[in-house]
């Protein structure tokens, strides 16, 4: 049973760990998790996403991997792109499979475990400061049991020339595995970086990946952040990302959920300064009995900021999607522009979408809109294509590709877009 597995894993950690600020934080996190337990559907935020199936399984927090990860990665799309690559297998940093091509030594692209001692000052200043553990069971769980993850530090005025891939592979060849990746990204003033989180799985047992990302964007910085979820087989994935934006920052975020049995994304933006731009894009294409749940939250805490959000879903078979987008416009956040849309196409009578766009506005001079659509492919474009001799099935595919590619094209790396569009086409 998951709860007992977690207890065992934490006890093991505690028996080995030296007492430090870090171990104290983890102890606190574990206490919080123990108090809260796994979220249930009685919790409004988890109304449509039931984790019960996880609770009744056994998972091991193991770093053992017997699958052929190397061969797997050679065929993965990231192998076709010139980039920095940090590879983690079952939560453990794999130096051999990783590749850092950045030549500037002032830019740190490394693993968290190493950074904790090597860059202790930066680590202590930022770690755990953005992702809340209080009243958040899964963030607490990650903090209590985290093994490793990416640590990226881009100093003032620096631009990381090539994208950084943070690759997580869950290998369940031997047992059901529980992974707790934890990434900390600090982008200093006027710096910029392209980050891509990628999630894969191999092996025939179950995978539970519970991620926490903390991204700090200091003034005037620019962050491109993409999340590509392609965990196949029986895989459960919870992803919490807190992006903390200081003044004059630009963040462009894209989540592509292309696979996974149960995927829950929690994407939180906190706009802590003026003139921030926050873009949130998402695409999910669940099939079979899978479930994809996107919870987003944008906190407009300061005036004169813009946020724009567009999430699209293509629903197949008996799949379920949840979209819950919250925009909080705080009292001081005058002249906020916040837009939010969720569009869904149902390709099956048995698919379900639960969508809830939410606005909470405490300022009085703002422009905010939100909306959601659930429907089938529009008849008019279908007829237009068919009237030119394009058969119905080909026409449908063209229109669905266009609908999905719209989101993929928000990614600013053309060669990655091309590869992802091929992946999308395969799913349709």
């Amino acid at each position, binding site marked *: 049973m998951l709860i007992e597995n977690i207890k065992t894993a934490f006890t093991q950690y505690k028996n080995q760990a030296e007492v430090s600020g870090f171990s104290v934080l983890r102890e606190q996190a574990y206490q919080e998790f123990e108090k809260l337990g796994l979220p249930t559907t009685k919790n409004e935020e988890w109304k449509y996403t039931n984790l019960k199936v996880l609770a009744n399984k056994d998972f091991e927090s193991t770093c053992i991997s017997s699958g052929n990860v190397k061969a797997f990665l050679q065929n993965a799309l990231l192998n076709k792109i010139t980039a920095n690559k940090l590879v983690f297998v079952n939560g453990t940093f794999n130096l051999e499979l990783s590749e850092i091509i950045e030549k500037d030594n002032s830019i740190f692209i490394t693993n968290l475990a190493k950074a904790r001692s090597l860059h202790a000052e930066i680590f202590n200043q930022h770690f755990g400061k953005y992702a809340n553990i209080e009243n958040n069971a899964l963030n607490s769980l990650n903090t209590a049991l985290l093994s490793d993850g990416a640590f990226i530090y881009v100093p003032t005025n620096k631009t990381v020339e090539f994208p950084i891939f943070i690759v997580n592979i869950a290998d369940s060849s031997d047992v059901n595995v529980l992974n707790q990746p934890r990434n900390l990204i600090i982008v200093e003033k006027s710096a910029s970086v392209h980050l891509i989180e990628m999630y894969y799985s191999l092996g025939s047992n179950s995978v539970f990946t519970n991620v926490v990302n903390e991204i700090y964007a200091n003034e005037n910085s620019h962050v491109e952040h993409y999340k590509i979820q392609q965990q196949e087989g029986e895989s459960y994935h919870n992803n919490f990302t807190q992006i903390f934006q200081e003044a004059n920052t630009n963040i462009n975020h894209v989540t592509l959920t292309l696979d996974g049995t149960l995927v829950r994304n929690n994407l939180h933006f906190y706009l802590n300064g003026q003139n921030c731009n926050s873009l949130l894009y998402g695409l999910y294409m669940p099939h079979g009995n899978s479930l994809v749940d996107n919870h987003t939250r944008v906190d407009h805490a300061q005036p004169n900021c813009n946020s724009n959000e567009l999430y699209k879903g293509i629903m197949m078979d008996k799949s379920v999607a949840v979209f819950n987008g919250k925009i909080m416009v705080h009292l001081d956040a005058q002249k906020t522009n916040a837009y939010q849309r969720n569009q869904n196409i149902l390709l099956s009578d048995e698919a379900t979408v639960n969508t809830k766009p939410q606005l909470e506005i405490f300022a009085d001079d703002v422009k905010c809109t939100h909306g959601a659509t659930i429907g089938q492919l529009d008849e*008019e*474009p279908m*007829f*237009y*294509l*068919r*009237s*030119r*001799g*394009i*058969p*119905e099935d*080909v*026409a449908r595919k*063209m*229109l669905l*590709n*266009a*609908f999905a*590619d*719209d989101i993929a094209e928000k990614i600013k790396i053309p060669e990655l877009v091309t590869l992802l569009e091929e992946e999308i086409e395969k799913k349709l």
Partner: protein
Amino acid sequence: MLSIKDLKAEIEGKKILNGLSLEVKAGEVHAIMGPNGAGKSTLSSVLAGRAEYEVTSGSVSYEGKNLLDMSPEDRAREGLFLAFQYPIEIPGVSTTNFLKTAVNEKRKYLGLDPMEATDFLKMMREKMDYVEMDKSLTSRSLNEGFSGGEKKRNEVFQMAMLEPKLCIMDETDSGLDIDALRLVSNGVNKLRNKDNAFLVITHYQRLLDYIVPDFVHVLYKGRIVKSGDKELAKELEVKGYDWIKQEVEANS
């Protein structure tokens, strides 16, 4: 080529076509005119195969085949083309990709191999000149952000690419200024030959100054109530439709 006999059609229980008959032979241009609500657009929709319209009786034979039995895509691949009154915008589908698919689907249907990419691009360039279409438009999404004139030129460009036998032009002149009208008409005139036929549906005579028809038919209350040559169109331009309506009411 096209033989419509006593065609009756309705939409959502509302009868629109009430026994329409029409014969079109290869090499001919027929204009269908008529007041608003006469059934002009319904006729084009029924011929192109829009599912919302229900044919309740009558027959449409196209090149000896029962047109009404065919899917919209089969009609197109058999050589029927509808130039839409309101061509829609399709974001995310480029004009080039769309036309390549359409051309090759038609070739596949006819048992031909797909076109070589270079041949296809050459053909695109040639056909774009028919309507003086801006080259940059083809890399953009289909009709997205196009002006009204550009959309109609794109329809005629597609017509040129697909080389249909029977072209139905549904109020192609609506919303066009005089320059765009001339470009569109010139394109159509270049495509006219002894093997194809045109059905030009219009409310106004203006278009027929440029695309000169062999026959003019007046559609009223879902039937053709008067036929003539191009002089009939000019008469309608001067006198309007009221005298036709009166003639019909008097005879009934």
